[in-house]
């Protein structure tokens, strides 16, 4: 089994553990409010950190292509709230800049 598959299976076990443990531990009180907020905000902070500076680094030759693509996705998402439209718009803009600018 290659390393990638091994990592994937490990995260599968981790995800399953996170989902199954609460079913079997004695339920205590509600989570403290601080912890609830922490869990609520974590994915949002993750998205911000995932976009920058990654999008700049993955287009070393032409960072503008990446930035323009993300901007196109954000605008489309704002208007349509549709993932496929947003990603498609972004690919089109990035492709155009890489080809012609």
């Amino acid at each position, binding site marked *: 089994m290659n390393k990638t598959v091994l990592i994937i299976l490990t995260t599968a076990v981790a995800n399953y553990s996170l*989902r199954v443990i609460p079913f079997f531990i004695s339920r205590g009180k509600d989570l403290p409010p601080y912890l609830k907020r922490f869990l609520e905000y974590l994915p949002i*902070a993750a998205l*911000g950190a995932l976009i920058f500076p*990654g999008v700049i680094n993955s287009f070393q030759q032409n960072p503008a292509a990446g930035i323009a693509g993300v901007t*196109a996705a954000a605008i489309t998402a704002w208007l349509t709230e549709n993932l496929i439209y947003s990603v498609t718009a972004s690919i089109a803009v990035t492709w155009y800049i890489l080809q012609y600018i």
Partner: protein
Amino acid sequence: MNLAAAKNNSDILDGLKNGLPVFLGYFTTSLAFGILALSSGLNAFEAIIFSATNLTGAAQFMAINLFASGALASEIIISVILINLRYFVMSASLSNRLLSFSKKQKAIVAFGNTVFSIAALREEVPTFKFMIGLEGISWLGWTSGTICGVTMGSILPSSLQNAMSGALFALFAALLVPEIKKGVRALIIASSAAILNSLIFYKLKLSEGWSIVISMIIVTGIAAAFFSQEDIQDIAVEEAESE
């Protein structure tokens, strides 16, 4: 067919019916995942295994980004766990409603617990058969979307594949924007994380994976301390509180 069997079947159908919107949403998202997984360097088999065994959204997209940047196994696994800590809360909420389930049933239902909000918001207590229908169709949507995605991805021309190396970031932005529409708070949190991550990555020269992990923990820790409870939009948590 006796009455009990008819009831069982109608519960499965009911679960499938309730899961149909989930199927469509998952299918289209994992279609994107399948395409992007290929452009991030995974092969079709790995991408499909990933979806079928993990059944998790944002964390899978993050992981393929880290795979592409050559991150260590530990960075990838810890990042996935952090993003998915919230499943712990969702399962805690759902388990409150499924007290009558046997241990085996709980162990099965836990695997597909991404649809907790539908199950938690239902008036009547969901039965095991209902949960199997609901989670089964969700899993099918996520896995079959990935299969279609890797099929499409492998036949795209190379100029498009180049452009697609930025599509993952577009997807992150598209996931983030609805949160920002709900309130400026998400914009503050996300941009703080973006700035801190850039500082850590460029100034401290940490790897991309650790830089993301550290910046998201610091920003979330501060944000959770400074922002008040009021507009938390977690249905599961509210539901748990009201019971």
